[in-house]
């Protein structure tokens, strides 16, 4: 059994990169959010519920989610990988209380934007997207828009907004791996900022799965191509662009429905085995083909990663709520 370490970094396979979120950075849309995941920076604006531009698009039973996705320039991450690793370990995998660590490494939420601990000043060159496109961005923008639309529509209570449209506009400011996953999470933050009613939170986790069977093909070991021996796939959470683009790496983005009812002690624990508590809403795979073992392994990791992401979002909302109660309501 091997667990391949990540290239060029000390970050453990299950560590998330430092997260920084800002709610309402834009004043014109109804809700907006900006999310930094390591060097990936996504900006999202939500307008809604509004009347659609033409009555042809109105649906009688409920609202419609419309997603506009726009990619930006790519940044080369090699110079900043070293710096990111320093922040990555404190951000994700240490055994201390997640809240204490997150306060240090993540989360500056303010209308006056301050970014903590995220090294954005390292040597980066902004260049346009190279051809062929790196995995994760190879899908057409239309595919990614549909993916986002499905993920968000399953959780928004659309029957409360008949004949309206909820428009989600995403802008990738910097792309360094886990772009689609960060886009989903940023959209969720913006929807919460806009006050759109949701029945749960669709949280995305990105994993890179390296199946040992590929290594076996190179003749390293007498490992079994038919899976007779237990070949455990390596799973890396929250990959950078470099990790995603390796040969034989499968990147899978899993969107899970994080419902905290499974933690509620008054509801009996059979909910934990229920398909829906932490169930997968949708997923998308790039790169190498993904095996069943890899999918199951990444689903396990995704559940835990989503929990950490929800805790981070809770921090962001808490800061916003606290700021409001100090200024708005007495």
């Amino acid at each position, binding site marked *: 059994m091997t667990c391949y370490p990540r290239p060029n970094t000390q970050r453990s*396979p*299950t560590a998330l990169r430092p997260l920084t979120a800002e709610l309402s950075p834009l004043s014109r849309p109804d*809700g907006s959010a900006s999310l930094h995941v390591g060097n990936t920076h996504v900006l999202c604006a939500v307008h*809604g*519920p*509004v009347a659609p531009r033409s009555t042809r698009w109105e649906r009688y039973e409920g609202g419609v989610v419309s997603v506009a996705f726009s990619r930006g320039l790519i940044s080369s991450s090699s110079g900043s990988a070293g710096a990111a690793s320093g922040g990555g370990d404190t951000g994700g*995998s240490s055994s201390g209380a*997640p809240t204490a*660590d997150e306060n240090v490494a993540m989360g500056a939420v303010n209308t006056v934007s301050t970014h903590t601990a995220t090294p954005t000043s390292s040597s980066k060159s902004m260049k346009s997207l190279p051809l062929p496109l790196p995995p994760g961005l190879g899908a057409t923008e239309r595919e990614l828009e549909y993916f986002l639309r499905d993920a968000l529509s399953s959780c928004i*209570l659309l029957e*409360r907004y*008949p*004949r*309206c449209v909820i428009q989600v506009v995403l802008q990738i400011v910097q792309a360094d791996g886990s772009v689609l996953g960060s886009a989903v999470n940023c959209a969720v933050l913006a929807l*919460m900022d*806009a*006050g*759109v*009613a*949701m*029945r*749960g*939170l669709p949280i995305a986790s990105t994993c890179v799965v390296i199946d040992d069977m590929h290594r076996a093909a190179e003749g390293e070991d007498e490992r079994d191509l038919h899976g007779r021996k*237990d070949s*455990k796939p*390596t*799973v890396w959470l929250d990959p950078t662009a470099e990790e995603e683009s390796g040969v034989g790496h499968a990147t899978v983005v899993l969107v899970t*429905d*994080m*419902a*905290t*009812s499974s*933690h*509620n002690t*008054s*509801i*009996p624990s*059979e909910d934990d085995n229920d398909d*829906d*508590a932490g169930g997968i809403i949708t997923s998308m795979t790039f790169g190498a083909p993904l095996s069943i*073992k890899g999918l*199951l392994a990444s689903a*396990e990791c995704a559940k*835990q990663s989503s*929990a*950490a992401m*929800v*805790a981070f*979002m*809770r921090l962001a*909302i*808490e800061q*916003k*709520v606290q700021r409001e*109660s*100090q*200024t*708005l*309501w*007495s």
Partner: protein
Amino acid sequence: MASLPPLLPFPPPPPPGFISGQSPPTFHDEPQQQQLPLAVLPGDDLTRFILKKDDASQRNKSKPPKIGTGLAIVPTSSSSRRRRRFHQNKDAMDIIINNDNDSRMNRNNTDEPSNAPSFSIIAIIAGRLIHHASNSTDTYYISSNTQRYIPTLGDRVIGIVEDTTGEYYRVNILGGHSALLHNLNFEGASKRNRPRLDPGSLVYCRVVRGVDDGVKVVGGSNSGRMVGGRVDPEVSCKVGGGSGGGGSSSIITNAMDDDGGATRKDWTTSECTYGPLSSSTTSTSFRVSLGLARSLLLPTNETLSALSKSKVPFEICIGVNGLIWVDAPAPEIVIMVQNAIKNGEVVGRGMVGGMVKSMVKNLRSQMEE
């Protein structure tokens, strides 16, 4: 299922007490109450905060707790969570009453202990869970500050006239769809004696049909049922309650719709409650967030009480949809009032008085030049 490579200890999922674990003393200090969570996210299960069967203070209340905005009742059953209906709040009271009286509601899941509720209360927006206790009942709702107004029955809003089509004005109340205002829905208006509103003028009016309110279906198999949310919202400049109605026959007269004792003067006088707002050269209107608009309407609002204490002459009209209109004899006063209100959203409590004082001082020195 494949066994996994050894994962380093991951931050564990938040323990059950997490959402209340680290909140500082709440602003609603009720020592006997279990501490409410500081912030809730959509999907958070809040049943145990709201239905505390073992809490003595709750048993003394005569009515079951009321559920306000941002919370939804979801019946728990073994079926898929996503397929459950998220009840609108109007159904909420019935469900709670049924559950308190009838423990047979638990027949869905025989493994549950008999006093577990057969439904759960879920937060559907992100914000702060607020508990308001009165003698007879507890009210819970989620407060959050948003920008997009959703037309609700009884709200007093400022609308912008967009268009005149036939008998109705189209008024933009900054909600999803523009609202309808009938020509004759002004106090004491008749066909020959009614205000003529130009597109772009401001109207202070009342919402008489909101997004949740229905229209009676007249024909077909659904005849007589109320269907909600498909029709454009409607506003009126008539004081509500009592005989209501106007040109439109689909206005719902509601027992709760008594409009807080507004005066019913004729639209031609300047003392009428609703109606067009004058658009003189020194008046202005601007948009703020919904939370700021609601806090300005509170009698204890600091910004407005500081401004009125400073004896600056101005007139203000606040719409719950976030639109505010200010009029004053001089444009400098209008600008100062507008800035003071906008600053009130970010300046902390206690510092508002000082801010307003310094602004008024600047204004006075400027006006004397």
